[in-house]
């Protein structure tokens, strides 16, 4: 194990000539999605709420429509492409926010458990067990039932997904680093806990945490789109990918195109991020499963 870790920085500094084509494709897709999210207000052909009542349920170009609405329109005449682009932004925003919250919360609790041990550690571990043994969707739905739906609550709630994984990882690695490793050495130099965890432990476990984040990210996208599909996530007039699919369900017979483009974006994005995550895991962190 220690030799594997010692060899690690050397391998990561190698030129990235060996990116497999599938991963390269995944990277391109992710870059395109990020570009869309960053520039949506300039590239979207219409506002996502703009109605065009004369062009309701217009088919897309490849199904006999015209170039005014490339991906067609919904039954209020809203442009599907414009809604898709705005949905990408909101879905990515939620998933990013939630992933960051989950990683930060889990790492913090893991460090606290490793540092304080005793009762705090037992409580964190019991909560982690609890979280891992309950289906997250049910917990999330219960919270939404009690508190109602709002965007902030949704992001925070999805941030709770997967915190226990980061907590377990960071606790385990911090304990082993503190037992005999560099963290113990730095502590006995007189460093404060902030310094030990912030400057030493965190950078050392960052690659593991980043891999976990890339593996959690697609799960959060799926959760968000699932909740939004059920009408319990993002609320109109805001729109997200799952929201669009849920809406498309009502017009499945008359306007199947409303379903196809958001469904494809969901699948492609989760596929790309999880392929990237698998690749990073093999590259950076052979200790993860």
């Amino acid at each position, binding site marked *: 194990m*220690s030799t594997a*870790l*010692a*060899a690690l*920085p*050397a391998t990561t500094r190698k030129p990235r000539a060996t990116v497999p084509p599938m991963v390269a494709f995944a990277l391109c897709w992710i870059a395109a999605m990020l570009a869309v999210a960053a520039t949506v207000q300039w590239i979207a052909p219409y506002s996502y709420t703009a109605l065009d009542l004369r062009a309701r349920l217009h088919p897309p170009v490849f199904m006999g429509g015209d170039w005014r609405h490339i991906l067609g329109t919904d039954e209020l005449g809203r442009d599907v492409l414009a809604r898709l682009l705005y949905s990408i932004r909101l879905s990515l925003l939620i998933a990013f926010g939630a992933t960051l919250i989950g990683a930060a919360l889990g790492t913090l609790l893991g460090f606290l458990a490793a540092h304080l041990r005793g009762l705090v550690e037992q409580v964190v571990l019991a909560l982690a067990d609890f979280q891992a043994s309950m289906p997250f969707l049910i917990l999330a739905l219960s919270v939404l039932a009690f508190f109602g739906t709002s965007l902030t609550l949704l992001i925070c709630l999805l941030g709770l997904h997967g915190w226990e994984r980061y907590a377990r990882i960071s606790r385990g690695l911090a304990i082993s680093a503190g037992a*005999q*490793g*560099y963290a*113990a*050495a*730095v*502590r*006995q*130099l*007189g*460093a*404060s*806990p902030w*310094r030990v965890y912030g400057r*030493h432990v965190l*950078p*050392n476990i960052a690659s593991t945490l980043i891999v976990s984040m890339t593996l959690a990210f697609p799960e959060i996208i799926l959760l968000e789109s699932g909740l939004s599909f059920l009408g319990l996530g993002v609320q109109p007039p805001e729109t997200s990918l799952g929201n669009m699919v849920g809406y498309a369900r009502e017009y499945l017979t008359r306007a199947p195109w409303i379903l196809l483009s958001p469904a494809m974006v969901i699948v492609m994005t989760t596929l790309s991020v999880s392929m990237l995550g698998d690749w990073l895991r093999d590259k950076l962190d052979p200790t993860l499963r």
Partner: protein
Amino acid sequence: MPLLKAEGLVRRYESRQGLFGRIAHIRALDGVSLELRKGETLGLVGESGCGKSTTGRLVLGLEPADEGHVVFGGAPMPGPTTPEWRRLRARMQMIHQDPLGALDRRLPIGAQVEEPLVIHRRGDAAARAGRVAALLEEVGLDAGHAARYPHELSGGQRQRAVIARALATGPELIVADEPISALDVSIQAQVMNVLAEAQARHGLALLFVSHDLRVVRQVSHRVAVMYLGRIVEEGEPDAVLREPAHFYTRALVSAIPHPSRRDAKRIVLKGDPPSPAARPAGCAFHPRCAAAVALCAREVPELKPRADGRKVACHLAHGDAMPVRKAA
């Protein structure tokens, strides 16, 4: 007045089998007292598990003693991780056995040597950089090593970097826990010299923990032999090696390969050292001691000085009992 004074240190560990298992108390240290003056090196030897590393951690205050106390520079040792304890780290340092484990593999060597100076707010950036260069030179590394990462250095170079880091704040006490035993035999002597020279130059008090009696003899002014959580003999290294008083020390000395001696004289100890959880009554060494008498199984021998100044914890060595000739 000694720089460091430890009296009656006891350290117990609890080990529990399973969630509701019975708690076993392990006495890793069972009443250790020692003194260390400025500029003096005390060698601490014994088999693995005898409590010598625990002694090192306790005198540095890295973990609290269950009984007894440590006095450093005339003041009692503050509890671990208190602000006073943290400030005190600038005056006492530790050198670990495994330099790769003790260094952060994500930071260049220079930053790690500088770190104690940053923690204890010594000087501005320029002054610290100059100090780092001087420290690296002192331990036999060159300025170019500052930008390297731990995995880019050899084992000996890493341990030199760890020594440089330990010297950074100009400490008065250093505990070196098996500092060369993880290194290649060919470079052990060089690293040992770096440590010995630093000790002499800065007038450090050095507690040198090792299982190797020969290495301890080279660097120490005094040597203490530990067995099962207690010091059983303490004295001048040459005298102890030439004429060991405790039967355990005799066995250790006879285990040193010696060109002019035949193997016939070697004392081979029976069995393994007992676990500290099942410490034998009386003298802990008596089940393995060739000369043990009935008294040894009954009474714990006290560590007390003989007429020649040597301290020994053995009934026979003090003439409290007569050795019995046993058929081999």
